[in-house]
């Protein structure tokens, strides 16, 4: 997982971002791959969760910080050996798909995913996001085009399905005890014996699921089901992870946490993953994705890599109680204002977003929400 290293963790601890510090410490020990260190980190994390469960409003005890210091000193020595890798994992060239029944077609799309990349796929419902993801996962036959899984030589479809992990929007039900499912998933992907126990404990702690491990599927909420499914899939150490609407069942806090975790996981140095995820949560996806692909009516109408796109015009969306006329009066005729029922979208070729906001604030316009969408796919919706 992405290691900015023990320095980052120390900073989180210093600012009392303890929950994030614990997660990152677990990530770091996994990166290092030292089983003893992982066990220590798991114990530390368990103690932390037990403490916060007992006293949710209190800061962790002194022993928490002492143990953290101890772990940090050990990780600092070990993290010197971690070397990053940057491999292309998947290349899709002009893949297209038409269903034999129904009239939907996915028109030729090309994409490339490297280790550590997150590709966000956005678009409205029924426009082809799931079809694209299922094609890439080897679940749907292509009409045309080529998929190249770079790490596999002459793979059959079983190899592809083994190599690519896919989490569908509706997660299939798990049967039996949740922890047994995790042990099973790890074992069938070659993680056996003590290592299996360690990795399952690690994932349970990493996603803060330890207190749910003995329950079954019916006893947990849909948000926890998503987390358990992610933990299960990650135990399989996939090189390519595909998630179809993973945020659909999560609350706003969990969405933020999971998205951050995806980013860390993808950017892992020891086990970098290519992540493809589709979502309706446009801004959240854009925040973590390295590139974003917008699909409309089966066509890829916009594909941008973070930091490489050129603006066509400045764009901003705001929510206000003021009328269009008053906004137009303040901003002048150089801007175009559109109202979509919820908020206004303001575009301008000349005026920058900060300039527009400044004008509105100076004229006492009440703004309850604003977002710069100059580089966002949102402007194409």
């Amino acid at each position, binding site marked *: 997982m992405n290691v900015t290293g023990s320095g980052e963790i120390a900073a989180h601890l210093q600012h009392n971002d303890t929950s994030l510090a614990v997660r990152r410490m677990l990530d770091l020990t996994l990166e290092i791959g030292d089983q003893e260190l992982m066990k220590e980190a798991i114990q530390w994390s368990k103690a932390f969760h037990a403490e916060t469960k007992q006293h949710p409003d209190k800061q962790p005890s002194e022993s928490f910080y002492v143990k953290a210091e101890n772990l940090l000193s050990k990780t600092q020595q070990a993290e010197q050996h971690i070397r990053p890798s940057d491999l292309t994992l998947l290349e899709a060239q002009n893949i297209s798909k038409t269903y034999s029944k129904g009239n939907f077609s996915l028109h030729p799309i090309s994409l490339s995913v490297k280790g550590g990349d997150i590709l966000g796929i956005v678009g409205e419902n029924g426009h082809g996001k799931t079809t694209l993801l299922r094609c890439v996962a080897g679940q749907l036959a292509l009409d045309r085009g080529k998929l190249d899984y770079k790490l596999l030589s002459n793979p059959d479809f*079983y190899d592809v399905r083994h190599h690519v992990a896919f989490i569908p929007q509706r997660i299939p039900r798990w049967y039996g*005890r949740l922890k047994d499912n995790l042990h099973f998933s790890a074992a069938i992907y070659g993680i056996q*014996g003590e290592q299996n126990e360690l990795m399952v404990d690690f994932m349970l702690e990493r996603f803060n699921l330890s207190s749910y491990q003995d329950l079954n599927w019916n006893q947990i909420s849909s948000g926890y089901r998503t987390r358990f499914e992610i933990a299960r899939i990650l135990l399989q150490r996939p090189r390519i992870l595909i998630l179809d609407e993973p945020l659909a069942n999560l609350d706003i806090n969990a969405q933020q946490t999971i998205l951050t975790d995806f980013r860390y996981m993808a950017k892992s140095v020891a086990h970098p993953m290519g992540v493809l995820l589709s979502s309706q949560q446009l801004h959240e996806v854009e925040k973590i994705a390295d590139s974003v692909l917008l699909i409309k009516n089966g066509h890829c109408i916009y594909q941008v890599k973070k930091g490489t796109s050129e603006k066509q015009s400045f764009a901003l969306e705001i929510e206000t109680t003021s009328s269009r006329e008053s906004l137009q009066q303040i901003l002048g005729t150089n801007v175009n204002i559109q109202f979509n029922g919820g908020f206004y979208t303001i575009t301008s070729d000349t005026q920058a977003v900060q300039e527009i906001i400044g004008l509105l604030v100076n004229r006492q316009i009440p703004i309850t929400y604003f977002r710069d969408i100059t580089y966002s796919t949102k402007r194409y919706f």
Partner: protein
Amino acid sequence: MKFNRPFTPGFIKKLDEKLLLNKSDSWSTRAHMVIYYCLLFMVVLAGICFIVPDDPRSGSKEPLWITLVCLLAFIGFIVWMIYLLRFNVFKRFGNLDQFNGLKTFLFYFISIVFMLLPPLVQPAVQSVRANMAYTGEELTKDMNAINSKVLLLEHDSIPHKWYADTFVVVNSLEGRQIAMEDENYIINSRGQRFRKILDTADFNRRAPEQDSVRQLNDSMFIFLECPEYMFVSNGDLLSYYPNLYLDSRELYYQYVLNYKAPEKKKTIDELRAILKKYNPRVEGKFAYESVDREWEYTNKIESKYGLYKVDMNINHITSRKYWWDGYTVPVLSRIIYYIALGLTLLVIVFRRTTVRTFFLTLLAAILITIITSLVLAFSGADSISVLILLLSYYAAFGILSFIMLGGRVRNVFNGISMNLFVFTTAFVPLIIVTLYYQILRLQYRDKPEPEGLFDNQLRDLLLGEIAGFVLLLLLMTFFFKRLYRAWYALPEQ
């Protein structure tokens, strides 16, 4: 690891944990749990069968027990299915080792065999109880004593003249037709329809069954048959103790030829004691009270001494004692083998294909059977045509399955062919052996067959069954796993 299953000892929990963490494909079959629970159930059931009062002289309740335990075993099978469906290495695209197909098949097969064993516990226990209560030698001696004492007591009321029937023997090849003609039938000394001319084959078959055979000249013989002195008899004891068991002829030589009038009271007391051993309700009067005058002497004597009930009770004992002998074990083995094989293949097919394909396979099998039956019925085809048709089906399923290996899209028709190909494999060698013997029969339909031509047929059929199982195991290891792996992973259209 949390483990809440009832009656599970520590070593099973440890084994379960070890398998889950190290051999997940074996763990997911739950064979270890099935075997453990089946053994536990059989031990408990055996205990119950020992405790429940059961007189070996009474009629066995085994049909009731077997039905009840079969129902419980079926419930066990359903529970196993529920657990089995929870985890599937194959459908999760997990690591499959070279012998995964073989291991999975054998674990399913063994699990089902274990589930089929509990219905046999009650018959086993009743055999043990009957063996503990009565030895075969004891029964044989008691039967001899009953027959001999009744013979001595009733010596004067029994006709002792042997049945004698004269006939002519002719050569089989030339005389069979003559022997079969209606005018050559007569009524014999026992009042039965009898052929007065026998061909040599018939003679050789029947002579050893007679009490005595006398030759009058080159072609004329007399069959002599002793009167019936076995008022109680038992086929099992006769076959197990032929030297101890006294048949009518031996009773005649021992007690009729050397007849000495018995000491009546003592003999009756002794007889009563033996009869009470097998029928506690027997009374000591021994009188012809409700006897029909038209009855044969044997019926009259049986009625007088209450021998019918004694005979029946001894038969109950021997049927319990010798339940496992003769054809029982081979027949039961075949029943268990074929049920286990069929269910194992169904489970394999269900676990390795989609639910839709599984049910369509069942539907296709039923439709193929109906259509084939109709075609064969209307065309009047013989058994050879049926067998050839079955082999053709097998070849067709195989070809379609091979074609699928190069496919790019998962196709339900290929899936059905593949399932039927797998399902029928075990029967192919058996069909080939049957076909071979049917062709032989056809060749010798209108001419005499060489001696011993069909002597090995049963052995060859058994070899065909074994070869089918071995072939299935080999293909399961080296080919079917590859087939299912390729098919299930194919993308959908």
